[in-house]
């Protein structure tokens, strides 16, 4: 891709500090953007509004905001099932955090090998790794389920193993690729210098690549957490006991209980379930957006 001067934001004006351009009509553009923001945010605001409405208001008042603030849905939703929602949150937090650790460690090791070390068949393995990027998880889930079930790990002593083992084996090729790209940007001269100082591949990894890869690790950690927190498919397939459920799987229990009275609590728990992701968004907004446009990571 071509590189241009970083000030090339405004196509026909050399000075980007003057936003008013012929034909630019900034006011009109702003109005359109505000309208789109309204459409984009409406469902989210409506969700939060509905979560604090009383049951009759949910049916009668479909407006954004409640007439009377009713926090009861949150306490009702929290203990709507035999198992408290707190348990589901703990399960989700544990799975997500361990996934972060697993992805970070295993993908970093693999990426270092691909980016920096010369060994036989490296090119072939790299091509295979790129190939696995295109493998949909829906294709892998059937054989993986059979594998983990054969090993008695599904619904076993610790039911999260089928969710976590792959994450500790660098199967998330996207993060491997991301880190390889990142490490290629680390100057080779640093390796050479360390090598002259007598460091081997392990020393270079430990003292040069590992500390310098922090930004890539942080990006991986954030996206790994958010994706796992939001993931539904794998957790639905591998978790079968109510007390082992993660938040997304537990939320579907509300849909099963089709009674209208559960709508308020369902919305309340939905809001809570989005809270960690939302906090990440607020804290890392700039980084998340930069992250996808440098690497192509999707939400």
């Amino acid at each position, binding site marked *: *891709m*071509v590189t241009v001067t970083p000030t*090339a*934001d*405004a*196509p026909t004006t050399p000075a*980007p500090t003057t*936003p008013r351009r012929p034909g630019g009509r900034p006011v009109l553009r702003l109005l359109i*953007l505000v309208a*789109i923001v309204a459409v*984009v945010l*409406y469902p*989210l605001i*409506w*969700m939060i509004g509905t979560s604090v409405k009383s049951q009759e208001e949910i049916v009668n008042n*479909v407006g*954004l905001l409640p007439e009377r603030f009713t926090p009861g849905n949150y306490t009702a939703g929290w203990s709507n099932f035999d198992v408290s929602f707190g348990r589901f949150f703990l399960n989700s937090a544990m799975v997500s955090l361990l996934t972060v650790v697993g992805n970070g460690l295993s*993908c970093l*090791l*693999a990426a270092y*090998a691909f980016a920096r070390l010369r*060994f036989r068949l490296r090119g072939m*393995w790299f091509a295979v790794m790129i190939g696995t990027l*295109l493998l*949909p998880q829906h*294709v892998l889930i*059937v*054989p993986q*389920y059979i*594998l983990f079930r*054969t090993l008695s790990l599904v619904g076993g002593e610790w039911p999260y193993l089928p969710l976590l083992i*792959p994450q*500790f*084996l*660098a*199967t998330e090729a996207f993060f491997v690729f991301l880190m390889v790209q990142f490490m290629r940007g680390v100057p080779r001269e640093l390796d050479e210098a360390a*090598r*002259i100082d*007598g460091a081997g*591949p*392990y*020393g270079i990894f430990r*003292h040069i690549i590992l500390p310098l890869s922090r930004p890539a690790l942080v990006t991986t950690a954030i996206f790994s957490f958010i994706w796992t927190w939001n*993931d*539904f*498919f794998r957790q639905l397939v591998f978790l079968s006991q109510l007390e082992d459920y993660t*938040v997304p*799987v537990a939320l*579907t229990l509300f*849909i099963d209980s089709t009674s209208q009275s559960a*709508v308020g609590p369902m*919305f309340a*728990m939905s809001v809570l*379930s*989005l809270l960690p992701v939302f906090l990440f*968004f607020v804290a890392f907004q700039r980084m998340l957006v930069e992250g*996808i446009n440098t690497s*192509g990571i*999707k*939400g």
Partner: protein
Amino acid sequence: MALTTAPDPTRPDPGSVRVHAERRGPGRFRDSEGLAGYVFLSPWLIGLMGITAIPMLLSLYLSFTNYDILTPFSEVEWVGLANYERMFTADPSYWHSVRVTLTFALIAVPLKLAAALGVALLLNRAWRGVGLFRGLFYLPSLLGGSVALAIVWVNMFNRDGAFNSLLSLVGIQGKPWVNDPDWALETLMVLAIWQFGAPMVIFLAGLKQVPTELYEAASVDGAGRFRQFRNVTLPMLSPVIFFNLVLETINGFQGFTAAFVLSNGLGGPVDSTLMYTLNLYITGFTDLEMGYASAMAWVFLLAIAVITAIFFSTGRFWVHYSDGEDR
């Protein structure tokens, strides 16, 4: 350790890197590097073999059997191509799920990309507040395929949902969209389009790379804004459009969560949201027909490979790389 004023050439600087017991020549280094390569690669290799390759081959084998997960492997019966035959000739719900998925991808993906590009063009100017808009538009993509968002979406398009109340403001009588077989899939498409933020950010990055001089040259030649867009922006952006198109199409084929939530895992109403992946889930994990589900998974994989190959082979006719760089 005593401080030395001049660095001792025979000893490496202890402050910078941990040092091996002896110095290695280049040749020996390379040997150790080859071994180290496989040491560092080993978790990935174990994962590739154990979690991906061998299970995949197993599932290829099982796709020719009647495996139902409850009977032990020793009693699995080889049925040849029966699963594939059933899929293509005797299972109307299979073809239905293919149609649903193709419809979804063919409509939602282009509209989502158009929305992403349109908004990216609006945001492609330097002014204060642009970052805020960028972030807000990206938020729905980040919440992505979460169950919570699908729950909200389904309720919004219910009979008493927010969408109908908006319609009633302009005097239109709404309907329970999610319970209507003609409209349930469309509500899922709207959800997908609503999450245009991720491709939008990628488009924005691409727009920043278009050289200003090209626009200047075009306007000197008398090209208006539309011609500039058509003759400068679109060709310069084509690699990014291509990237987004491939990614979003593959994503579109995999839509699962929202369809599951809308239909309570059944693909209804009247199979209108029976996406391929949902059909696969029901076959394998509800009906426990693992052999048949394996066959479905393999056809899905081949379909995605073929579609990606078609994209790449047609891409060279419309994707322009200005500097010949391979992407």
